[in-house]
C-alpha cells in the first residue's frame, strides 16, 4: 500500500510519468497476478498484461483514492476473467489426452506442499482447489486486502454473500488441512451456520 504517497503517484501516472506508473505497478501487480493465477491458472500473465494496458489507457480519467484504485483494478481484472471464460466456453479446446485433472491442482498434493514449506505458490495452489467463487473471494480478502463491501462491489454480490463464501472457503481449507495429518479441525471450531426456514411466502403454491 502506498498510503499518503498515492495521490501524487496517481497524478503523475495520469500525466504519463513512467516512474509513477512503475510505482503503482510494483505495489499492485503481485496481488493481481496471484488473483488471476487462482482464478485462471496459466492465463494469469496474459490477463494481467491486458488489465494493465486497460489501466494505462484509462488512468487519466480515474478519480479516487487508493482503495478505489484497487477496487477499479480488480474489477477490470474480473471483467477480463469473465471475457476469457466466455471465450473458452465458445471455443472449447479438445484435449488430445486426459489432461482435465491437471487443470486445477490436486488438493492432496498441494496441501502436502503447503504444509512442507508453505511457499506462496503452494498456498495459492491450495486456495485454488476451492470452488472458483470462494477462491476468488478469499484471495481478494487475504491477498489483495479488500474488505467485504469492497469485494462485494468487485464480484457483484452482497457483502453478506461475500462473507459467507469466504467462511465456507476457510472451512473447506481447514478440512483439507486436517485430512493430511494436521490436527483435524472439528466442525465446531470453524464457522457453523444454523439453517433456518425461509419465511412463509403466504400460501403460494407452485
Amino acid at each position: 500500500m502506498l498510503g499518503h504517497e498515492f495521490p501524487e503517484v496517481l497524478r503523475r501516472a495520469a500525466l504519463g510519468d513512467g516512474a509513477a506508473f512503475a510505482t503503482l505497478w510494483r505495489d499492485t501487480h503481485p496481488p493481481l497476478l496471484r488473483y488471476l493465477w487462482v482464478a485462471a491458472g496459466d492465463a494469469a500473465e496474459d490477463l494481467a498484461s491486458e488489465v494493465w494496458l486497460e489501466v494505462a489507457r484509462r488512468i487519466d480519467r480515474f478519480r479516487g483514492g487508493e482503495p478505489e484504485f484497487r477496487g477499479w483494478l480488480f474489477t477490470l481484472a474480473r471483467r477480463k476473467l469473465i471475457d476469457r471464460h466466455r471465450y473458452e466456453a465458445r471455443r472449447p479446446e479438445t484435449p488430445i489426452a486426459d489432461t482435465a485433472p491437471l487443470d486445477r491442482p490436486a488438493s492432496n498434493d498441494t496441501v502436502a506442499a503447503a504444509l512442507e514449506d508453505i511457499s506462496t505458490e503452494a498456498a495459492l495452489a491450495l486456495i485454488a482447489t476451492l470452488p472458483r467463487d470462494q477462491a476468488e473471494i478469499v484471495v481478494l480478502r487475504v491477498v489483495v486486502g479488500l474488505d467485504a463491501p469492497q469485494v462485494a462491489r468487485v464480484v457483484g454480490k452482497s457483502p453478506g454473500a461475500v462473507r459467507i463464501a469466504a467462511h465456507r472457503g476457510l472451512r473447506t481449507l481447514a478440512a483439507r488441512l486436517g485430512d493430511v495429518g494436521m490436527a483435524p479441525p472439528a466442525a465446531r471450531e470453524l464457522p457453523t451456520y444454523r439453517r433456518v426456514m425461509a419465511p412463509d411466502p403466504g400460501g403460494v403454491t407452485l
Partner: protein
Amino acid sequence: MRAFSGSLAEMFFRRHPAGRSSPEEAMAERLLAGRGAGPGAPSGHQAVERVLAAAARPATRRELSGEAAAVTAFLRAARANEARARHGRHGRRPAARRPAYKLPAVTAALMMVMFLAIGGTAAAGALPGPLQRLAHTTFGAPAPADSGRPPADGNPRDGHGTVNPATTASRPATTGAESTAPTAGDGNAQGQQEPTSAPAATASTTKTSGGQGDGNSQGNGNSQGGGTGHGKKSGQGIPPTPGPDPTPTPASPTGSVQTANAGRQG
C-alpha cells in the same frame, strides 16, 4: 407477505441473535483480515493462518520481473492517448467552425425555399384572403377570388385610378349571359392592366362570369394586346368571326385563348 431483503444464502445462514457474530465467524474474520488466529487457537485455525499468510507474502522477484515491459507498454499507451487527444482537438476545431460558414448558406437556402413556396402559393391564388390581397398589391399576384368588397380604386399598381377588372367580374357574374352590353369597365380596363398581371386569374374570372364577364375579360385581353377584337364581339353581340381573333401573345397564351372562347360564347 413480508419481503426478505437479503440474499438467498443469507436467508439460510443467519448470524447469531442480537447481531453478534459467533466465535467461529469472528475467528474467520480475524484470519481473513490477516490478524492471525491468536495464541491458543485450535491447530486447524493455525494451519489455515499459515496458508493465508503464505499467500499474502510480499512480492517475489519472479512476480516483479515484468516491470520493464509493463512500463514500456504504459508509455506507448500514454503516447497514443496524447496523440488521440491531439487529433481530437484538431478534429473538433473545424467542427466548431463549421456552423460559422454553414449558417448563412443554410439560412439563404431556407429563405429561398420559403420565398418560392409562398410565391408559388400566391401565384396559384391559394393564399388566405388577406395574404393573397397583400401579394396581389405587392407583386401582382392574382387577387383573392372571394373578396367581398372591391379594393380601393386607386390601385397603385394600376396607376389609373380605375376599377380593377378582376374585381368587377364578380358583379356582372350574377347576371350571366343575359346582358351582352359591355360595361363601362370594359373601356377603362382596356390597356390598363399591366402585363405583369397573372393571366390565370384573368382567365378564371372571365370563365366564371359568363357573357358579361367577357367585357371584363377584355381588359385583360387588351393588356395582352388581343382585347380589342373581343370587345367588339361580345359587347356588340356580333357572332364571332374568324377574322379578328386575337393573337395569343407569348406572355399569356392561356388568358388570350380563354378570352377568345368567352367572346365566342357571348
